[in-house]
């Protein structure tokens, strides 16, 4: 084995000491705070800490991407949210601004010298759909904030392999730098604090579609909306075809919009069959005074959870719930849903009238190719078992893999003392410390999708990542790292933000 690689001794020990790491010949870098991932979660956390007075030299972002918005940008692009399109979250979810003021709508009004966005937000959500920013605007704002806080100086490229506890307190984070960029295979970051924001552990396909793909080695006709699938739209431009869509969340709405936009713009003849596992026919909910809108198969909700989850009554309520009670509440207000946007409603209405959009309830049992190449899905539903033929199947269910599929998280579950919450993800405290992982005077935090199921449901959103970052920053301040941001610091820092001055 090369010097500077993990040894069997290290791999087997849940807790390491400095001598063990030195014996393996792995170089060690000291820094008080390490954040793993380097996506949106790491970015907003670093942003908060910088504003709380932590110097850039005390923070390292370990990541395999160059810009914090890179993975988000990739996923939005393939799932049909090009830069001019508007994203899902609202005007005051601003990952580049911890205050959420001015909101994106106010900034846009100022930039374009128009009152339109402001009139729009005044009417939302009653007289207008939620106003949401364009994806391109979000990226531009992130680029600016990233430069302002000196993000690039904190970034270290590489893939994190594991985080282990250190006998004398704190943690060792093992990084595999890009090939050729380092003398040893691994380097270690020794820190008092670690933050994990690794995003989605991975994508999972619906079982029947997975089986089809492996059995027929066909990755072209059955695609996931989160992987590049432009070829589907290109094919439909050359020849009329049928597309089968699975899943009723916002991603299906985006894909439908793309199909129908192309149909309108280019005069295509695309036929669409939409299969919902749960077909929502109307308002639904636990009590007559707590009902969510629904219809035509979809459950309608502006954001992935009810709005008060990010700061109102439901946030306060969830904070108090444990175990099964919490899981039940998650089931009631979450689930698959999409916003009821006027444009989408109109397009689907036209599709139903024209007979080229058909929606049905059902679960696919099996998919196979017919002799002429069309895909046949055997669907078992309320109307019995039917065969549906299509040229392409787009899986929009967005199933996320188990957290143990992520190497760092699996290691943490096995060696780090971490456990699972009622939804099976990482169990975190109200301040986002991963339960069971404390090490001396150090602490390990996590935010983002890996922590869904905790005391705060909105974790996998910009605003949720900022809420987590605030809790983490406050907890770190209690431990003497960085300052608690009080009203005066908050205001002076906001002025610096507004003027574009460094923190």
């Amino acid at each position, binding site marked *: 084995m090369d010097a500077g690689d993990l040894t069997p001794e290290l791999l087997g020990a849940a807790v390491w000491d400095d001598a063990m790491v030195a014996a393996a010949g792995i170089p060690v870098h000291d820094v008080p705070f390490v954040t793993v991932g380097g996506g949106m979660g790491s970015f907003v956390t670093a942003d908060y800490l910088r504003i709380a007075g932590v110097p850039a030299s005390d923070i390292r972002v370990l990541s395999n991407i160059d810009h914090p918005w890179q993975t988000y940008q990739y996923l939005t692009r393939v799932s049909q949210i090009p830069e001019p399109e508007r994203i899902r979250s609202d005007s005051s979810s601003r990952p580049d601004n911890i205050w959420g003021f001015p909101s994106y709508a106010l900034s846009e009004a100022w930039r374009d010298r128009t009152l339109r966005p402001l009139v729009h*937000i005044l009417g939302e959500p*009653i007289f207008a759909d939620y106003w949401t920013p364009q994806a391109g605007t979000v990226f531009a704002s992130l680029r600016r904030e990233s430069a302002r806080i000196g993000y690039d100086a904190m970034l270290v490229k590489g893939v994190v392999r594991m985080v282990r506890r250190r006998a004398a307190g704190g943690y060792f984070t093992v990084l595999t730098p890009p090939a050729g960029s380092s003398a040893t295979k691994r380097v270690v970051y020794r820190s008092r604090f670690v933050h994990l924001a690794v995003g989605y552990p991975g994508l999972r396909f619906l079982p029947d579609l997975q089986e089809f793909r492996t059995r027929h080695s066909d990755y072209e006709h059955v695609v996931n909306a989160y992987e590049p699938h432009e070829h589907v739209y290109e094919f439909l431009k050359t020849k009329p075809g049928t597309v089968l869509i699975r899943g009723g969340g916002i991603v299906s709405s985006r894909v439908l919009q793309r199909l129908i936009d192309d149909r309108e713009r280019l005069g295509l003849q695309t036929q669409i069959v939409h299969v919902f596992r749960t077909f929502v026919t109307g308002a639904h909910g636990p009590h007559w005074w*707590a009902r969510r*809108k629904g219809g035509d198969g979809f459950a309608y909700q502006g954001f992935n959870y009810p709005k008060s989850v990010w*700061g*109102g009554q439901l946030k306060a309520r969830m904070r108090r719930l444990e175990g099964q009670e919490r899981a039940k509440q998650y089931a009631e207000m979450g689930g698959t849903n999409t916003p009821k946007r006027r444009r989408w409603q109109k397009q689907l209405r036209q599709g139903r009238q024209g007979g080229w959009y058909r929606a049905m309830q059902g679960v696919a049992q099996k998919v196979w190719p017919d002799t002429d190449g069309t895909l046949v899905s055997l669907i078992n539903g309320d109307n019995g078992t039917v065969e549906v033929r299509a040229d392409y199947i787009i899986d929009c269910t967005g199933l996320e893999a188990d957290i143990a599929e992520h190497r760092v998280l699996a290691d943490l579950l096995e060696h780090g003392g971490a456990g699972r919450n009622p939804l099976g993800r990482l169990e975190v405290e109200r301040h986002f410390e991963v339960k069971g992982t404390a090490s001396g005077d150090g602490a390990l935090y996590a935010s983002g999708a890996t922590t869904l199921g905790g005391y705060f449901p909105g974790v996998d959103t910009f605003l949720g990542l900022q809420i987590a970052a605030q809790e983490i920053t406050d907890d770190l301040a209690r431990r003497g790292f960085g300052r608690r941001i009080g009203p005066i610091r908050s205001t002076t820092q*906001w002025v610096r933000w507004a003027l574009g001055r460094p923190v």
Partner: protein
Amino acid sequence: MVPVLLGRIQTRIFLLAVVGSVITALITPVLPGGGPLADRYRTAFVVLGAVAVLGVAWELLYHLLMQFRWEKDWPSLFGLLTGVPEAVVLWLLLRAGAVPGVETAPPVAAFVLQFAAVWTAVWLAANGPMRVPFLRWRFRGGRLT
């Protein structure tokens, strides 16, 4: 900000005390009506106090109505429009002499102008600038403590 009950009440009292007082102090000398300035100021500040005190009851009502909303949210337009019934009720109380400290109601124009100015300023502050000094306020349903 999506409020919780305590947050509604705290935010209302805080913003009326800070923003409402500044607006009232500035606007009162130019409001229509006669009499010594000191008396007009006294009336104007009693009116402001009444918006705060009656407001606690109003907030209970709004909180109840909010329970019928699936998202348990309170759109900002509601925050603006609820000023209308509040102003009407307060005016009726002033006319009826039911507000302690005000024997004769101010001229209707003076009342409407003061109320509208204070209400709009408080509403604007609550919909943005408030988040600048109070970083945690919007995540706590409007609670300041």
